[in-house]
C-alpha cells in the first residue's frame, strides 16, 4: 500500500488539520515508512483469532440511574475561549436548516 499526497490531504481534512506542501511531502514519506512497517502484521494468519478490545475482558459495568451533582454553569464555561453568560459561542454554523 502506497500513500499518496492526496490521501494525506484527505486524512488531514478528516482530522481537521492543515499542512503546507512541504509538510505534506514529509508526512507522506514518513507515513509510507510507518505504514509499510505496520503491514508487517500481514505475515500473521489471524483468520481464527478473536479481536481483543481490552487487555482485561469484563462486562456489564453500570451505574444506577441516580442524580449526581452537576458542575455550575460558571465552571462549565470557565475555560471557554468565547462565551456569553450562559452559552458557549462558536462561529456561525452554516450547514444547517
Amino acid at each position: 500500500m502506497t500513500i499518496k499526497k492526496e490521501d494525506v490531504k484527505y486524512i488531514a481534512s478528516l482530522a481537521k488539520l492543515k499542512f503546507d506542501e512541504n509538510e505534506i511531502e514529509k508526512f507522506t514519506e514518513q507515513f509510507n515508512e510507518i505504514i509499510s512497517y505496520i503491514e508487517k502484521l500481514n505475515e500473521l494468519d489471524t483468520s481464527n483469532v478473536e479481536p481483543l478490545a481490552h487487555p482485561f475482558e469484563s462486562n456489564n459495568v453500570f451505574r444506577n440511574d441516580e442524580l449526581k451533582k452537576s458542575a455550575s454553569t460558571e465552571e462549565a464555561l470557565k475555560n471557554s475561549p468565547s462565551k456569553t453568560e450562559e452559552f458557549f459561542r462558536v462561529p456561525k454554523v452554516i450547514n444547517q436548516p
Partner: protein
Amino acid sequence: MISYKNHSEKIAQIKEGKFSLKENVAFFINEIEKQKHLNAFNFIFDDAIKIADKIESKIKAGTAGKLAGMVIAIKDVLAIKDKPLTCSSNILKNFEAIYTATAVQKLIDEDAIIIGKTNCDEFAMGSSNENSAFGKVLNPFDNQRVPGGSSGGSAVAVAANLCDVSLGTDTGGSIRQPAAFCGVYGLKPTYGKVSRYGLTAFASSFDTIGPFAKSIDDIALVLEVISGYDEKDSTSFNDEQKIYLEKISEPQKFKIGLPKEYFSSGLNEEIKKLINNKIEIIRSLGHETVEISLPNTEYSIATYYILTTAEASSNLARYDGAHYGFRSNDASNLNEMYTNSRTEGFGNEVKRRIMLGTYVLSSGYYDAYYRKAQKVRRLLKNDFDNAFNDVDIILTPTTPNVAFKIGEKSNDPLSMYLEDIYTTSANLVGIPGLNIPIGFNSENLPVGMQLMTNQFNELKILQLAKQLS
C-alpha cells in the same frame, strides 16, 4: 541536611523533630528552583507549604493518613481541580481542570502534599520528552541527553531529588523507559488497577497511572493507595490484593522467565552485561530462571502503533477550540476554527499520530489495520498467558539503549518508536511492568531492568525488586 531512605523513615524523622515538613517542602521548592534548567516542572504549587503545616500537626496528633507529608509531583496530564491541566500542549495552555483525578484525590485523601505538575511529552506522546510546549526536559545525569518520555518530568523530579515520589502515566513505556533513563523505580500497574478517571486519554485501552520513586517501599505504598475499583471508570477493577508494603519483604522464591526475543541483536552489549550480572544475583538468591519465548514480540510495535494512534485520533478530537482550550484567532467560520485551532495548537508528534490513527480507522482500512491489530493483540496476550502458566515473573531489559542524545531521533519517528520494543507489550496485554535501576554504563548513564508479571500480581515483582534492593 534532610535525608531519608523512604517514607516511613521520613515520618520517623519528622516525629523525632529532625526536620519539619514545612522545611522539607521548602527544600524541594528551592531545589526545583535551583534545577530549573532541567525543566522538570510545568507548575509549582505555592500552597504546598501551607498544606505542609496542616499535615505536620496531623502527624503529631497521630491522625494523619498513610501518605502523610509525602511530597508528590503529578504529571501534567492528570486533572487537579482549579489547577492548570495542559498536557504540555499549547492547545490546553490556559486550561484549568474543574475536577480532580481519582488517583490524585486518593493521594490527597491520605495527606500527601502535591508540589506541582511535571513536564511531559505533549499528550504523553513520545519517548524523549522533546515534544513539549513547555520545552524539553534534560536528563540530570547528562544534560545533553533526553530523560526519556513521555513522563520525563516525573522521572527527573524524583531522580534529581525535587520531590519524594511522582506520578506518571504509561501507555507504551512512558513510566518505565524514563525511569530506566533516569535511574529510578517506575511502576506501570496492571491495566485497570488504577482508575483512569482524570487521566487525559491518549489511548484508552492502554493508559495506566503509576509511581516513580527512589525506594521500592514507596512504590508499594503509593500503589496501595491509588489502586482499586472506581465507579467513575468502567475499565477499573477491584483489587484482590491491596496490601503491598506489609508483604513486600516476604522471602518468596520465584520462577523467572527470560524471553529470548528480548535479549537478541538490538540490545546494547553493556546493558546486556549488567542485566546478566543481576540474573546471577537472582539465581544466587535461590530463584529459578528459565529461557522462554514470546514469539510474537516482533509484531508488538506495529500492533501498538495502530491501536494507540487510532484511539488517540478519537480521544484528541475534542481539542478543537469550541468549548475550552486554545482557539485560533483565525476562525471566521466553523471549519477554520477547528482546523486552525488544531493545526496551531498541536505539536508535530501529536499531529503525526492523529493522522496515522485517522488513516487506520478511515473507511475501507478498518479491517486491514484496526481489527487485524486487535487480533494480533490477542496473539500477544496468548504468548504471555502461556508464559505465565510456567513462570511467575518475566525479566527483560527496559530499553535496548541508554538515554540518547537530544535531537538524535527527533527526525526519525520510526526509529524512535522502535525504542519502545521492550515496553509496549505490557500495555498491549495489560500486565504490570516495573523498572528497577541496576547500575550505570561506562558513560555513567543509568541502566534499567524490567520485571513483568501476570495481571494483578504486582506483589511478586515488588517482592523480587525488594530482594534485589
